[in-house]
């Protein structure tokens, strides 16, 4: 077909037009094409002229969802029928390369009918724009956004997961501090720092558990040895009473029924028998009291120590004659077994009045002091005191630093003090200077 007029080569103009144009007959045979169109579709003019549109541009057989042919056909049918232009949506319409493979392409097509005077469609101008690059860019953007969303989701999952792992680690640590080692931390397969911590803590938990079990086992052994010892002490002191009763009783019979047959030396010796038997009775009583301490369960209550000390003074004034001045400060309140602490204070204060009895101005001072974790009670006197090199003997059963002639005693009082305080988890200690007084301390853990 030649198009010419006024000396202008319309064919050359059309074929060189900066746009992708294809001209079809109503039966969709290709009658004209711009160079740009040929280039974009990788076709050659002589191969497509006079051929059917869909013969030249079939769907990509590898793309099962390809609908370029049917969309274009439907658009062309529409303009043939309506005789009006139709702009199609952006289409995926892959292009066959010369080697027969397909290349992905996106197009924005416009179909326009060319009518004669009778309003009949004589040509169809099919103009397209290759929007493949735009679509790809857009798709890339969408893909990037999708990837970014996935990454954000993964990161937040990671953070959430790590947060849960850290919470788990701190929970298990807390249980460790409560001596519960039953929980293990799950180790993920990530092999990260948290896994290293988990593995380390799990091992630590196992080690701590086994250590604590060892300590508990030896405590239990110690406890059972202690119990046996106490049972033994109790039974021995019980058995010692019987012959002692006999010694006492028969000596009594001698005094009552045979004193006329005894001279003064005989009576003195008999009196010594009775005195020593009585003394042994006291020792056994105190030993029994001491052994009972071990078996007694602690009944802890809040103790107003000033009231307790007042009670002790009443007992002391009744049972131990003394002239000591006793000064008491304001004392701290503690949680402890009332009866046992009463015994402790009684023993310390009665010791103090005993060992100050030879002073011209006997003085006993009772005070308390609050430390970080404990309350320390102090009983200070200006009595006989003791040599610090024997301080370790003070709290042993039947250990005495003074002769019976100097100061009477059995050597059980301070042993009881130590026993009671250590049963409460506290400590006892003493400071002294020979001839210048002694200070006794006992501490009890603070109540929270």
């Amino acid at each position, binding site marked *: 077909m030649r198009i010419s007029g006024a000396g202008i080569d319309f064919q050359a103009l059309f074929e060189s037009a900066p746009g992708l144009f294809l001209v079809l007959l109503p039966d969709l045979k290709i009658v004209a094409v711009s160079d740009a169109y040929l280039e974009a579709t990788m076709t050659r003019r002589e191969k497509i002229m006079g051929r059917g549109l869909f013969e030249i541009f079939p769907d990509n057989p590898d793309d099962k969802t390809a609908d370029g042919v049917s969309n274009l056909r439907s658009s062309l049918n529409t303009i043939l029928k309506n005789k009006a232009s139709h702009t199609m949506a952006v289409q995926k319409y892959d292009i066959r390369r010369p080697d027969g493979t397909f290349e992905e392409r996106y197009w924005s097509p416009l179909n326009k009918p060319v009518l004669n005077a009778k309003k009949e469609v004589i040509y169809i101008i099919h103009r397209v724009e290759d929007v493949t690059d735009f679509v790809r860019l857009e798709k890339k953007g969408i893909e990037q956004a999708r990837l970014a969303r996935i990454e954000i989701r993964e990161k937040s999952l990671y953070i959430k997961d790590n947060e849960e792992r850290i919470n788990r680690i701190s929970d298990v640590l807390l249980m460790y501090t409560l001596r519960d080692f039953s929980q293990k931390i799950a180790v993920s397969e990530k092999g990260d720092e948290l896994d290293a911590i988990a593995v380390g803590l799990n091992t630590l938990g196992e080690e701590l558990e086994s250590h604590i079990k060892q300590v508990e086992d030896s405590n239990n052994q110690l406890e059972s040895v202690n119990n046996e010892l106490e049972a033994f002490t109790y039974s021995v002191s019980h058995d010692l009473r*019987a012959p002692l009763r*006999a010694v006492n009783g*028969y000596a009594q019979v001698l005094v009552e029924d045979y004193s006329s047959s005894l001279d003064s030396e005989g009576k003195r010796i008999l009196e010594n028998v009775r005195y020593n038997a009585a003394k042994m009775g006291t020792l056994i009583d105190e030993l029994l009291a001491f052994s009972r301490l071990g078996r007694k369960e602690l009944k802890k209550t809040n103790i107003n120590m000033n009231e307790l000390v007042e009670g002790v003074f009443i007992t002391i004034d009744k049972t131990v004659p003394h002239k000591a001045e006793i000064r008491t400060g304001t004392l701290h309140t503690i949680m402890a077994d009332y009866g046992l602490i009463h015994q402790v204070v009684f023993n310390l204060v009665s010791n103090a009045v005993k060992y100050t009895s030879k002073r011209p101005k006997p003085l006993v001072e009772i005070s308390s002091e609050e430390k970080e974790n404990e309350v320390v009670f102090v009983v200070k006197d200006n009595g006989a005191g003791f040599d610090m090199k024997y301080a370790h003997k003070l709290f042993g059963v039947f250990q005495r630093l003074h002769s019976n002639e100097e100061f009477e005693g059995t050597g059980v009082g301070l042993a009881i003090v130590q026993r009671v305080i250590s049963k409460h988890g506290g400590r006892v200690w003493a400071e002294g200077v020979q001839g210048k007084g002694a200070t006794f301390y006992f501490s009890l853990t603070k109540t929270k």
Partner: protein
Amino acid sequence: MNSETEILLVEDNMSDAELTIRALRKNNLVNKLVHLKDGAEALDFIFGKDGKDALPAGRTPKVILLDLKMPKVDGIEVLRRIKSDERTKTIPVVVLTSSKEDPDIKTCYALGVNSYIVKPVEFEQFIKAVSDLGLYWMILNQRSS
């Protein structure tokens, strides 16, 4: 006139028994007192050698002084037998213990013991125990006869 056993002393320690008897006698308590040396003898005395039939005549004591720690049958077992038998459960039993802290005292009270005396048994303690049991008339009667 009264030939029945009035005081039954069950005590394995001969010194304790002698001193107890002496303390009571020295204060002119002349009631008929029988001393048995262990729990088995006590059960034979009270229930008869072959056991459960009629109680031996004239052998129901007015009061039993019972030591706790004895060979063969201990005081707790004797107490249990006496207090679980309808024929003997009303006999007052006073247990003798070497300490008022003896945990056995609790067991004894659970079994129905009437009182306890801490050894050595002194006359005053005995009198107080039997008086508390309402048996003082028994001693008064005997002392006046």
